[in-house]
């Protein structure tokens, strides 16, 4: 039993806090009435996930998560909300279909239980040896060797995405 006040205990506590943040953020993200709040929830959740990555020995990915997800994707989504959020007063009045709600709850419940049970009961073939060092060098190496093709492809995807979104957003824009 680790003491709460030992360094290890503090780290454990921090982890619990992160878990809480992640879970709460996710819950807010799907249940909040106003879209902007669910964006805030999503961001909270993503920050939590970044923390989890840090615990998984990859600070690089954690920081990238902050930089890309929170800083870029989050801002883009928040921006989209600002551009097009329907009237907050209007939203709750629209009745949800109870059947959809039940169905959603059921599906997700089944998925969660299934996955959790699967994760907890499977005997994973443990990797022997030291955990990955999380350094950038290894990631860089593999990006430019083994996964260079994927790397190139993702840049093409991004390029296409940029061009596509430009085209989409530009259409119908007339100068006043």
């Amino acid at each position: 039993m680790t003491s709460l006040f030992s360094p290890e205990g503090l780290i454990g506590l921090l982890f619990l806090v992160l878990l809480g943040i992640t879970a709460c953020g996710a819950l807010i993200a799907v249940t909040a009435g106003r879209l902007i709040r669910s964006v805030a929830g999503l961001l909270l959740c993503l920050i939590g996930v970044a923390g989890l990555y840090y615990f998984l020995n990859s600070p690089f990915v954690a920081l990238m998560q902050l930089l890309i997800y929170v800083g870029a994707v989050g801002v883009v989504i928040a921006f989209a909300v600002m551009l097009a959020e329907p009237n907050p007063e209007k939203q709750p009045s629209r009745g949800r279909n109870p059947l959809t709600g039940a169905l959603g709850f059921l599906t997700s419940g089944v998925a969660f239980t299934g996955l959790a049970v699967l994760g907890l009961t499977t005997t994973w073939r443990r990797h022997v040896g030291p955990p990955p060092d999380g350094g950038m060098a290894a990631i860089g190496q593999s990006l430019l060797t083994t996964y260079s093709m994927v790397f190139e492809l993702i840049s093409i995807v991004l390029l296409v995405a940029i061009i596509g979104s430009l085209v989409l957003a530009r259409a119908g824009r007339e100068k006043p």
Partner: protein
Amino acid sequence: MSVLAQCDSKETFVLNLGPQHPATHGVLRVKLTMDGEYIRQAEPVLGYIHRMHEKMGENRTWAQFMPNTGRLDYLSALSYNHGYVLAVERAAAIEVPERAEYIRVITVELNRISSHLVWFGAFILDLGGFTPLLYAFDDREIILDLLQAVTGSRLTYCYFRFGGVYNDIEPDFITGTLAFIKRLRARMPMYHNLVTKNIILVKRLKDIGFVPAEMCRKYGATGPVLRGAGVAYDVRRAEPYSVYPELDFDIPTHPEGDSMARYLVRMDEIEQSMRIIEQACTKLPNGPVMAEKAPKIIKPAKGDYYAAVEAARGSFGVRLVSDGTNTPYRLKLRSPSYSNLSLFGEASRGMLLPDALALMGSLDLVIPEIDR
């Protein structure tokens, strides 16, 4: 509908600039119908500082209206003093001694410089630069000291009288004025280096806010706005009054019609005013400063009278209707900013908000003069 959603190109939203807004220099309200940051329609809403000057004119004697003229346009109060006394002198056929005329010209031109300095500072303040304002105020304080020594007030002068001026100037005033002009001459390059040539300012003013000559004509805009569109109309030359015909000065014009042109016209006008003052100081004759024959109680003959002067913002006109009594029957003040602002709606259409504010700043508005 969310606020930004309304910015979408098919839908617009209304942005209220003012009545208390840092850019409107007082209490102007501009109802902007915006399309994103583009202006679809701009409608100035006036009257927030309507002070009933014309009504007061009908309630007071001719002389008692004098202090009001100083409060119409507090930045160049003396020009307004001048316009009013010119009109009444014309109506009552009062001759003004030459020395008084020269004193009027010197003080009015000093006041014009101080007005342009405030405009300069406030304009740059609109564009986000703070320091030039204080440099301009620094110079302006000296003018105010000079004028205060003569007139007793700093801002809302009530110095001119029918037939002359309130009191004579002292010799210090002339030396002080000449010293000030020397100083300002030396400072002008600094202003140009700090502000006029600044790339950010050039980018913000050049080719922004076109007010072509034809638009000025349609709306009756005068003064630097018109001269910034290339028309050399200046009441001082067009309908010479006072001793301006005896003084040598140019009418600066810039044909581009953009905000930069109006800016440059005013900067050049400061130089021209300095020239006028220098000449007037050397030509200043001796003699009385009040007409001896000026009647104590003014009762102009029945009829209409009009007098115009070139105020710092354009042509200021006073239309008097006298019924032969000691109070005006009707007193109409034609204020330049009123006409200059009326074109804002058309000129700003399709502009971006910051550009429209640069345009508004370059019109040089003084709201009490518009609302009267």
